Structure formats: structure tokens, C-alpha cells
């Protein structure tokens, strides 16, 4: 419909209704909640979260392996940090921090936790056990709060001029996939989403290694001009700080671990990083992410009911992620030279944040839209969009007209170009092979 018609129609809203709404806006804005953190506050909290993270991971692991004396060494290494860690072993129940009683939801579980400030960043020792089959002790640590781990490094024998002495044997996900690359004695875990749950197995032997995490803090709120207060233990009374930009800071922390286990097959430490990033005081956003073997498995994981695939062809890789802002499943058909990203989002609010480009009704990659097709078979509008991101790929967006629960399902298909710069498949060719998968 012509926008003018809509504008005129909306302008005809009864005056009484306008008065009612305008009167509310005329009132002074409600007091800012503690959740509206400033840039600097987020920086501070992000740094503190990382320090806490590093300390507790190191402390938990070292304590687990070496008992109190090692944790004392670790405490000394951390300088003036006087936080007293509990003396425990893998068989002990660990007490909760007095600062974190509210997070200690089970007095029986082996538990060590420490809460920062207003409770926006929490690291918990969650569980530990010995695996006879793996001949390994396993420590589970849960971390959630603002910010997220964007990458993790494990450096063998820090300060050693001759790296690669096999302190770290390998770094894998829990299900055995290699997630780290080794270069110059540094294992780097790659492709770690800021909003992800990670299962990391570190196999290490005798020696020393350094775990170095890079945490990126960022906020979801923007443009609050008023001063806001900074945290006390209840998340209130925060100091006056200007906040007029998105949070995007990187904090780096380092922990050092001594290892004396020689057997190359174990033990290993299993760390669960679970990040729930959110605005302070808001309802925690739950995230699910991971990889799947089948599309149905991914659909089940993120509760996406529709998806299209290609007859008799299984994707080579499937990954998924669900936040309370967006949900997507990304799958690639290597032999066909295409990858598909299907995401469920509010089309006009969230998609532009996903892609960093403006979105309008003409297509996802505005203003690069060129043509559109309507396909009756799929009951979908197909928009051919040229993506200008310099990666020399063409992207096509399929916009499904039907709104699903929580948004509209978009598909963005990336086509690899052949050597001559032409597409192996045209979108219209693919249509004949597409078929919808319905889950549930």
C-alpha cells in the first residue's frame, strides 16, 4: 500500500487516543533501571568478569589437581588478589562464595561461585568427576553474564624460547572435534561465538601452559544520554557515567597452569563455557548453539519448524544458534557450492543488525536489490540481491511471506563463483530441487 495512505490513515487516529498516549510521553521518563549500563561501566564489569573468570578457572583447575598449595601459588601469582579460595579436592563439596549465595541454588552440589557487582557476570564451579573410561578428572565450570569469550589461547611453556614441547597434547570439543590450531606453541580456539556454549577438552601433559582468554563485552542498549548509576551489590546506585555508544571492548586475561601429568592420554580438563549475555537486570536470554548432523536435529535444537533443503542431498555442515533476538540455521552443500542461512527474525528490526545493512521490503541487501521473482510452488518471494562485501560472492535472499511465531523466516543463499566468475547454479535452477522440510 502506498505509504501516504497509511500515514493519512494513522493520522486519523482519534484525538482521545492520541491525547492518552501523548500525555504519557509528556511525563518525565521513568527512572533508568540498573540494566541500562553505561559504556564505561560495561568496560569495568567486563574487565572484572575476565579477571574473575581467569582466577576461578585457574583456581578450580589447580586446586583440583594439586590441592591447596598450588592454589596458594596461584594466588601469589595474581598479586594482591586476596580472595580466599576454598580448599577442596575432586571428591570434596566446595562451599559457595558468601558473595554469591543467591546463585547457589543447591547446597549439595559441589559448588564454587563468585558473583560480580549486580549479578551480571557469574562464574561457577559446577561439577567435577573422574572418568574411568577416559582415565581423567573432569572439571565443569559454568560462566554466564555480560560479555562473552570471543577466543581462547593456550600457550605452552610461557617464556620458553623453544615452544612445542607437548605440554598441551590437543584441544578438542567434547565430542572430539578439533577446534584449535597450533602455531608457535599457541593453540588458538577459533570460531567461538560470543553467544555460545562451549565444551572444551584440554589434554595436557607435564609442563606449564598459559590459558589466555579474550572476552568481548558489548551491550544491547544505545543512546541513553542521562547519567546512570553504577553498581553496588544490588545493581543500583551506579556512578554518573556518560553512555552514548555501543559497548565494544576487548578484555584479555591470562591464567597460568602447572601440569605434572605425563601420560599423553589424560587427564584432561573439561570446561563448559556457557554465556548468556544480556542487559543487566533483564531476563536472561537463553542461547543455544552448536553443530548438528541433520537438519532435523538443528530444527529441533532451535525449534524452527520450516526449512527448505534439497532432495536426497544432505548438507555437509550444519550449525545453529538461537537467541531471543534471532534464530538461525546455517548449512552448506559443498558439492553444490552454496551455503544457506535460514533465520527467523523480525524483518525490519533485527535483520539489519544481523547483516549490518538496511532492510526494506524490497529485499535484504538494500540497496543492492535488482530483481524479484514470485514462485508459486514455494509460495515465496525471491529476491536476487548482489552483495557488495568484497568476498566475490553473490547472495540471494528468499523471503517467505508467512510470518511465523517470533518473526519472518528469511533465507540467504550464498553462491560460490566458479573460476570463470559465473554461478554454477542460478536460483531459478535450484527451485526445482528445493523441498520444504517440516518439523513437528
Amino acid at each position, binding site marked *: 500500500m502506498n505509504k501516504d495512505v497509511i500515514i493519512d490513515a*494513522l493520522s486519523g487516529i482519534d484525538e482521545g487516543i*492520541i*491525547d492518552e498516549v501523548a*500525555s504519557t*510521553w509528556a511525563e518525565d521518563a*521513568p527512572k533508568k533501571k540498573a540494566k541500562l549500563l553505561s559504556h564505561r561501566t560495561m568496560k569495568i564489569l567486563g574487565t572484572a568478569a575476565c579477571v574473575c573468570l581467569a582466577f576461578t578457572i585457574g583456581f578450580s583447575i589447580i586446586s583440583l589437581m594439586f590441592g591447596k598449595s598450588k592454589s596458594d601459588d596461584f594466588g601469589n601469582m595474581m598479586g594482591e588478589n586476596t580472595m580466599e579460595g576454598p580448599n577442596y579436592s575432586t571428591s570434596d563439596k566446595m562451599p559457595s562464595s558468601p558473595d554469591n549465595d543467591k546463585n547457589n541454588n543447591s547446597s549439595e552440589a559441589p559448588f564454587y561461585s563468585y558473583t560480580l557487582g549486580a549479578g551480571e557476570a557469574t562464574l561457577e564451579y559446577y561439577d567435577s568427576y573422574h572418568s574411568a573410561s577416559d582415565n581423567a578428572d573432569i572439571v565443569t565450570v559454568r560462566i554466564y553474564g555480560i560479555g562473552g569469550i570471543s577466543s581462547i589461547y593456550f600457550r605452552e611453556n610461557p617464556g620458553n624460547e623453544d615452544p612445542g614441547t607437548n605440554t598441551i597434547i590437543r584441544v578438542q570439543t567434547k565430542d572430539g572435534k578439533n577446534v584449535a590450531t597450533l602455531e608457535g606453541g599457541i593453540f588458538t580456539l577459533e570460531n567461538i561465538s560470543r553467544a555460545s556454549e562451549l565444551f572444551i577438552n584440554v589434554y595436557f601433559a607435564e609442563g606449564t601452559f598459559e590459558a589466555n582468554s579474550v572476552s568481548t563485552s558489548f551491550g544491547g542498549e544505545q543512546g541513553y544520554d542521562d547519567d546512570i548509576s553504577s553498581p553496588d551489590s544490588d545493581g543500583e546506585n551506579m556512578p554518573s557515567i556518560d553512555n552514548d555508544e555501543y559497548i565494544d571492548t576487548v578484555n584479555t586475561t591470562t591464567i597460568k597452569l602447572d601440569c605434572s601429568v605425563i601420560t599423553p592420554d589424560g587427564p584432561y580438563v573439561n570446561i563448559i563455557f556457557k554465556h548468556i549475555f544480556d542487559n543487566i537486570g533483564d531476563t536472561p536470554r537463553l542461547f543455544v548453539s552448536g553443530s548438528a548432523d541433520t537438519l532435523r536435529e538443528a530444527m529441533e535444537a532451535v525449534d524452527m519448524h520450516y526449512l527448505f533443503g534439497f532432495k536426497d542431498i544432505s548438507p555437509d555442515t550444519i550449525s545453529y544458534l538461537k537467541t531471543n533476538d534471532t534464530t538461525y540455521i546455517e548449512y552448506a552443500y559443498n558439492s553444490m557450492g552454496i551455503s544457506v542461512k535460514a533465520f527467523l527474525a523480525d524483518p525490519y528490526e533485527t535483520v539489519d543488525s544481523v547483516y549490518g545493512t*538496511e532492510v526494506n*521490503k524490497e529485499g535484504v541487501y538494500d540497496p543492492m536489490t535488482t530483481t524479484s521473482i514470485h514462485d508459486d510452488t514455494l509460495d515465496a518471494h525471491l529476491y536476487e540481491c548482489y552483495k557488495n562485501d568484497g568476498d566475490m560472492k553473490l547472495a540471494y535472499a528468499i523471503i517467505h511471506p508467512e510470518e511465523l511465531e517470533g518473526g519472518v523466516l528469511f533465507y540467504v543463499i550464498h553462491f560460490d563463483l566458479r573460476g570463470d566468475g559465473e554461478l554454477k547454479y542460478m536460483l531459478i535452477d535450484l527451485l526445482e530441487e528445493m523441498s520444504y522440510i517440516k518439523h513437528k
Partner: protein
Amino acid sequence: MEELRLDKSVSDGEIIELYLGRDERAIKLTEIKYSKQLFRIAYNVLNDKGDSDECVNDTYLGAWNSIPPQIPKSLFAYLSKLVRNFAITLYRKNTSQKRGRSELDVSLSEIENILCDGSSVEREAQSRALSDLINAFLSDLEKDDRFIFVSRYYFSYSVSDIASRVGESDAKIYKKLARLREQLKKKIEKEGFAV
């Protein structure tokens, strides 16, 4: 009135009295009390500071010229309608120049999905029919939902602003808006409007 202080504590009734008495302090007090809110409404539509300032100034002049004979029941509601009208006029003028995307663009693009084209209907008649339908729809809503809908689609406030105002998360406001759009769509279909 001679001793009137020039600050936000002056009531709307006193300001209206100044307008009616052709006292220019009315404009100054309007600016002191409502310039930020009026600017925001204009900015939601125009996404341009200079244009928004211009609209706010036009609003002061518009209020000066129209009160009297108009005697608004709610001063801010009256001013907000004025500033929105000025902003939309300027928006229409700017549209052909392809300026930056404003909240009005975003909010309109959300709702035009459900208010589809009925090409056989005269534009004006179509607008009136739609207005009636929207008013009926709004009348049936709970006050909170009505506030959210009108704030978004009449005043073009951002979802974050609305969420902040009502003390909800952005996600909840998104969901509520999606639900309200769906309800409106059903009503439109039920009424046999061209969809």
C-alpha cells in the same frame, strides 16, 4: 501572570492561558517544557537534526497561530500532533531525495505488510476507511497495548524507547507489536478491506 516563573513547573493550563492572552512567554515556556519531546517526535519521522529543529520551531509558530481559536484539552497532545504533521510534510518532501531511513520508515514498513494495496479504492477514501478500522481496533485494545501501538505507529518511537517507557524488555515489545499487527490483520480481513 506577571510573576510567572519560566521553568517546567508552569502548568499546561497556565501556558494555554498565555497563548490565549497572546503572551509570547507561551512560546518560551512551551520550548522549556516540551522541546525535547517534540524534537524526538520529529526526529522519529525525519531522522535529521536540522529538519527536526525546523519542525519544532514550526510547531511553536503553529501553536501561536492556532491558539486561539483552538483551545487544546491537552497541550502536549496538541503540540505533538502539530509537530508530527510538520514532520510528515517534510518527510514527504524529503522522500524523493532518498534521505536516511527514519523510524517512520521502519514502522511503516512493518505495518504496510498487513495494510496492503487496494488499487481500486480511492486513496482518500481508503485512508478514511482504514482510519475508522484502526480506531475501532484501538478502542478494543487494553490501554497498555494501545499505548504501545500508537507510540510505535503514530509517533514512530523506537522499540527501545517504548520498552524503556513501559519498563519491559525490547524483546517483549517486539512480540507484543507482532501480536498486535496480527490482530489488526485479522480485523482488516474480517472487515473485508482490500488485503
